[in-house]
């Protein structure tokens, strides 16, 4: 075990996989000469050379398309977006090509590609740079979506994503790149895609939170522990395929559930998970499932408004109090 920053865990995953498989290459804006906009790929150009660490022009649609084409031809590209907010420009390649090529060729073509980069908001970046895209991509058949909360999960799941023969969207956060955590250092450490993890055991309420929101949920749980409320936190880690079994198992124990999601409410992950819970755990619910999400409005720039906009520990506590009938 080594204590690594989130960015170092991602780098280790890429580096280890590149060292084992020559078909893997990294492509994106400033990934090579500049060592990555967030220093995720630092040192990889020196180690793996310019053929495998490729700086691209600012043209998301273009290099995403090159990535999909390369994957169709047997390479295993890792395409970095400076943020998924910019990947909207590449959506045609991701949604119309990467997700559908295997299906439309009757399985003749595999698309072993990873699209990765930061997702959602990261402070005062205003409306166009603060959107959470995990649920949107999860909507499309043929895409796997991962949004992890901790360095170890990031490393284990990114390695699985790189080894997967299907397109995987791997999401990170600018605000978590400096986050430290114990990470196993053996080369073969992987975490299977589609497995949630109970990260905190509790008996009173299940809080489902992934990505950055996992840390918001943890803060809420710690505050409530002082009031003798025993919060269980389940981190789905993989958005799609979603591990509903682990979630339902937890709710059967706690009978109450709050979903915390960094996206807008309508048709979001919280909506889908809420539906699955009522279908799979109806007889075990003691209160309607609550969700804490962004409001149905765009990110404000002003700090005071932004702080209201983003789900906070206090909002999570309110929701927990509601489902446990405490207030």
């Amino acid at each position, binding site marked *: 075990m080594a204590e690594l920053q989130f960015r170092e865990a991602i780098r280790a995953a890429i580096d280890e996989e590149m060292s084992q498989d020559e078909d893997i290459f990294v492509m994106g804006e400033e990934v090579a000469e500049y060592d990555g906009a967030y220093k995720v790929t630092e040192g990889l150009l020196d180690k793996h050379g310019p053929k495998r660490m490729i700086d691209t022009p600012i043209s998301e649609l273009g290099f995403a398309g090159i990535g999909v084409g390369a994957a169709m031809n047997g390479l295993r590209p890792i395409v970095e977006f400076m943020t998924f907010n910019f990947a909207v420009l590449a959506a045609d390649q991701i949604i119309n090509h990467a997700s559908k090529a295997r299906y439309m060729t009757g399985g003749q073509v595999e698309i072993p590609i990873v699209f990765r980069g930061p997702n959602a908001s990261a402070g005062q970046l205003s409306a166009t740079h603060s959107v959470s895209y995990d649920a949107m991509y999860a909507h499309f058949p043929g895409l796997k979506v991962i949004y992890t909360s901790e360095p170890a999960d990031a490393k284990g799941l990114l390695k699985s994503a790189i080894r997967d023969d299907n397109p995987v969207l791997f999401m990170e956060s600018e605000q978590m790149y400096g986050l430290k955590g114990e990470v196993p250092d053996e080369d073969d450490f992987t975490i299977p895609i589609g497995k949630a993890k109970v990260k905190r055991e509790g008996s009173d309420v299940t809080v489902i939170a992934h990505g950055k929101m996992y840390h918001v949920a943890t803060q809420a749980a710690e505050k409530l522990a002082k009031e003798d409320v025993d919060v269980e936190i389940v981190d789905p880690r993989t958005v799609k395929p979603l591990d509903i079994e682990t979630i339902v198992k937890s709710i059967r124990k706690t*009978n109450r559930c709050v979903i915390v999601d960094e996206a807008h*409410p309508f048709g979001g992950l919280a909506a889908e998970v809420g539906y699955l819970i009522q279908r799979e755990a109806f007889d*075990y619910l003691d*209160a*309607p499932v609550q969700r*804490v999400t962004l*409001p149905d409005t765009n990110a404000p720039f002003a700090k005071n408004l932004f702080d209201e906009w983003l*789900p906070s520990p206090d909002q999570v506590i309110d929701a927990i109090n509601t489902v446990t009938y405490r207030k």
Partner: protein
Amino acid sequence: MAVKVEMPKLSDTMEEGVIAAWNVEEGDTVESGDVIAEVETDKATMEVEVFDAGTILKILVDEGDAVPLGGLIAVIGEEGEDISDILEEAGSEGSSDKSSEKKKEDTDKKAEEGEESFDPVFGDLDKKGNGQPDDGRIKASPLARKMAEEQGIKLSNVEGSGPHGRIIKRDIESYEPSKAPAAAPTATVTQEDKEHRVSQMRKTIARRLSESKFSSPHYYETIDIDMSAVWDARKQLNEISDTKISFNDIVVKAVATALLKHPDINSSWQGDKIIEHRNVNVAVAVGIEEGLVTPVIDNTDQKGLQQIAAESKELIEKAQNRDLQPEEMEGSTFTVSNLGMFGIEEFTAIINPPNACILAVGAIREEPVVEDGEVVPGKRMKVTLSSDHRIVDGVSAAQFLNTLKQMLENPLGMVL
């Protein structure tokens, strides 16, 4: 155009105001900003200003009278204006009390129609308790419904503590049948009375036995048994047995043997089916300081008297020391309750769920009996079988009791 003057909200917590004084009379003219009345609220005496100019056409409330928030207190308009509509409206609402109610209704209606509650923005919708109107039906969380069904609790007897009276997990957990609305009035607690906290054991006894008595139709059959043969046999047995064998041990053994011949007694009611148990597991009711427990002697029919006596002794000791493990109290198929040692001649017992029957055993009486036309000293014991009529009919119960009587009157038969 006439304007209604309504009781304004003069403090955050105010629900009604008392008109302390009117500064105007009907027919006076007022300007916007004039103070027309003084109102006592829950906090202080405050002034009521008007926002319209005109003539005071009507004053509806006398000094000293209380008016709820929003209640009509006066009407301002042009002299001679017809205000009968306004007065009628106020009149038809009876007191202005209703007008605030109507407002509430309006908001409720709005919420129901979804105007306010349909808001996809986080939380709003959810926080309103899903906009459920209080329509009188029993609301319970799915979990609470399931728990109530499993425990045989009627939801209509449970008071819900959730939003809109929703019955939730904790309401079922803390439910006590005696608190049901239909229950007999409780005795008034006076100062001389002593209150006891209801222990978990008492709660369990209360719940299980109420459920049993109220849901399974009990009936009782009593039979008198000649115990003189058992009396002699016990004496002989205790001369050779390692463990002292009690009369109750012999009754338990006889019951187990009789149950083998009457499997319908060794059954339980499962709602849509009756389970006839292959194993004979006789439970023995043991009174302890805090209440009552029923440890089980597994496979009683397969055990000899000595073993039954030993196990029973151990279980009773454990019960008295509160050392019984839950599994030692589970799985009974029949229960024996014996109050003979207290000189009780006969009594009726409440069936121990999920058993079909329970046997209440009385004291062995030394009394004169008539045998072949002669009065001789006898040893008699009465036992009363309580049966659940859903499973066991009167004839079956009688046949079982007769088998038991035969066994005890000819104890050697048990060896067969």
